[in-house]
């Protein structure tokens, strides 16, 4: 048995077969993507102001869902506290807003603050695995919620912020359509950055951790540090979502760190079953169910969200193997 090199070692390595759709011709996916993009951009001219602000909220949740997916979909650790970093980002953006109205500056500051907060708290979170990880991140989220009530400016009342300026020289954005387009542009940028991250060797190693953590250790990697890095990046994305939330509502309060927001992000990630685009779609669906359908029925948003969670739990879904292997069967 001699060592034979295959003639073209690069063949097949470039593709990422994990998230390939198994149906439809090859042109279907790009075409659908372009269609969604065109629809998203033209949306402000098609619907009323109320729906536009809902769409903005959906985009913010989509960013948060990507943050949750980075943990749930790659290393298979389901977080239930991502809203904590959203709130950290939102308060940071609010304090930056007293200095400058420039949106991109707020966004960067919020992302940095979210990442720092995640790096500090992640030391605790990445020690846990499986259900305990979920419990610990949930506890951390609620503790940040409590701390925000105590320490954050404005207390439990929250604070209001001035409208955001997209680029230097432009007027502040007040109309929902412009805010929507700004948030959409930022979401696309973040999405592009995430798309790069999930294609790095780092992301492949995270997938390896989901399958079998000791194997990645035996490959010479410190898995705790890899997970902490993933947790930090996810916190940064959640912080960026916080800056977008400020741009959207011009208001932040500790209630934004409530469990409901984290749960929605996690559920959206689970709907996406490992795919970032799926997580975004899931977030849009869940926000539509909670706010739009809830609005039509005159309240009862939580009930609708609860029904959506129940549906999600009982419907058979395709999931990445990583998600299920992370939670091994009960030990015998």
């Amino acid at each position, binding site marked *: *048995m001699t*060592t*034979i*090199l*295959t003639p073209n*070692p*690069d*063949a*097949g*390595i*470039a593709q990422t*077969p*994990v998230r390939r759709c198994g149906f439809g011709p090859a042109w279907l996916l790009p075409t659908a993507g372009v269609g969604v993009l065109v629809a998203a951009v033209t949306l402000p001219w098609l619907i009323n102001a109320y729906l536009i602000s809902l769409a903005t909220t959906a985009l913010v949740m989509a960013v948060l869902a990507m943050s949750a997916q980075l943990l749930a979909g790659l290393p298979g650790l389901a977080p239930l506290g991502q809203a904590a970093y959203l709130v950290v980002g939102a308060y940071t953006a609010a304090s930056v807003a007293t200095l400058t109205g420039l949106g991109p500056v707020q966004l960067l500051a919020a992302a940095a603050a979210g990442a720092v907060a995640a790096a500090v708290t992640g030391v605790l979170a990445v020690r846990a695995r499986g259900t305990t990880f979920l419990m610990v991140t949930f506890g951390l989220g609620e503790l940040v919620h409590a701390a925000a009530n105590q320490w954050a400016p404005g207390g439990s009342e929250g604070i209001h912020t001035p409208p955001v300026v997209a680029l230097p020289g432009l007027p502040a954005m007040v109309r929902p359509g412009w805010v929507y387009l700004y948030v959409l542009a930022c979401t696309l940028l973040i999405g592009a950055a995430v798309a*790069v991250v999930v*294609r*790095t*060797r*780092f992301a*492949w*190693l995270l*997938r*390896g951790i*989901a*399958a*079998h953590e*000791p*194997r*990645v*250790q*035996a*490959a*010479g*990697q*410190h*898995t705790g540090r890899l997970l902490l890095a993933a947790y930090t990046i996810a916190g940064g994305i959640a912080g960026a979502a916080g800056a977008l939330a400020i741009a959207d509502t011009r208001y932040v309060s500790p209630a934004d760190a409530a469990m409901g927001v984290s749960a929605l992000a996690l559920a959206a990630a689970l709907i996406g079953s490992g795919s970032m685009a799926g997580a975004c779609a899931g977030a849009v669906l869940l926000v539509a169910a909670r706010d739009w359908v809830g609005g039509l029925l005159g309240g009862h948003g939580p009930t609708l969200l609860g029904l959506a969670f129940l549906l999600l739990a009982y419907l058979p879904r395709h999931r*990445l*193997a*990583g998600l299920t*292997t992370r939670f091994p069967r009960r030990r*015998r």
Partner: protein
Amino acid sequence: MTGALLRLVTVSRSYGARRAVNEVSVELPPGARHAIIGPNGAGKSTLLHLVAGTLRPTSGRIHYAGHDISGWPAHRRARAGIARTWQHPALARPLTAVQNVLLAVPGQRLAALRPQRRAVTAAHAALAQVGLAKLAERPAGQLAYGDQRRLEIAVALAAAPRLLLLDEPSAGLAAEEITRLTELIRALPDDMTVLLVDHNLDFVAAVATTVTVLHHGQHIATGTPAEIRDHPDVRRVYLGTDALTSPAPNSPATPAAVAGTPVLRVRTLSAGYTGAPVLTDITLDVRAGRVAAVVGRNGAGKTTLINTIAGLHPAGPGTDILLHGQPLTGCDTRRRARAGLGMVPQGRRLFAGLTVDEHLTLPRPHPTRSRSVDARQVLDLFPVLAERRQHRPHQLSGGEQQMLALARALLAAPDVLLLDEPAEGLAPAVVGQLAAIITGLAAEGTAILLAEQNLALACQVAHDIAVLDRARIVRHVATADIREYPTDLHDLLTVPTTAPTPS
């Protein structure tokens, strides 16, 4: 001394009070092909974990390439050139074979979007080395079991290790796959040191130049395969000959009257783990008042057989298990227990934290059952337990633990008793006691199925013996015949003197 690549100096590892590895010293020169063998519970896997860094030694030192690596975490040892495989394939199933290998290729940047050409070449080379070049783009989860095992080795080879650790590489492989594995290991570069743990002694003899035998965590012997084969201590470890010094067995034919129709019938039983067949086409009967023994080497599938009958392991399609003529195949574990199956599992599986008394209050015979037993009768049988009623399992000796496991099973007044390696880890005197108890139980009419590696115990108590080898029962014999022709059975159970027996 200085030339050794890996040197273990009086390394020990304890789990609570139990010493899984007890002051073992081993030395591997560069390029060695070293195997560690020993019966179940010998501490082989623990030793491999200690070298790989997944476990830390309780005492003792591990030197590797001139460094003391005892305190190094697993990833640091991996970077120093120690690679390993796992007993059960633990691959990233959605990733393709070549992606699995690429994860282990060292020297790549974390932020790299595409693997470097050099890394891809190395990954394909590793795949070609194990003969998987054609399946490189197939997701690992879709590979056949044997191919997954070879992919495991490719992943380990991709790191270009100086020391390769193989954990049960031949487990679950068919005969021709083992032949290919043997060729693969023989073709490894001469400067690569290989340390492997395996149950398959033919395979070990074929690939290893030196062998270490462990027993109960202790070093028994080290030498070439031929030396090990003839070593008297090794033969004793594998065959348990020391137990034969205990009193001569009762005449196996005493209660001939009770030995009527079979109580437990097993027909065409099959079972496996993650796609690897462990048992195929097992057929046997256990009669009231008689002891049927299933003997075989480590890894032959004895424990899987017992667990499958008890319902703790899923049976393959076509399996029929009948108790008193009633099919058990669709019943869960509890219903089987209620129907009259009692079990003493391997490793005893006592309930941690429960006292002896609590263990004895748990099982209750089902009210519909005709027989009943109370704790007093059972405690009469095991006087040692009566003095330890408030003790918890970790405070008991191995023999007492085994008695407690047996007592727990007997309290449910089983018609059929499944015993899985009851003599494991027990002193010869205790084995003698155990044999007397088993014989006594059979004399009272209980049907007993004994899975045992200790041939001496099996011959002492059993009426019929079935030999399990490579997933099948290769022969049924009466105990009396074995006594007359012991050699052919010894070959099946210990280090072989010939090529593998065709099955």
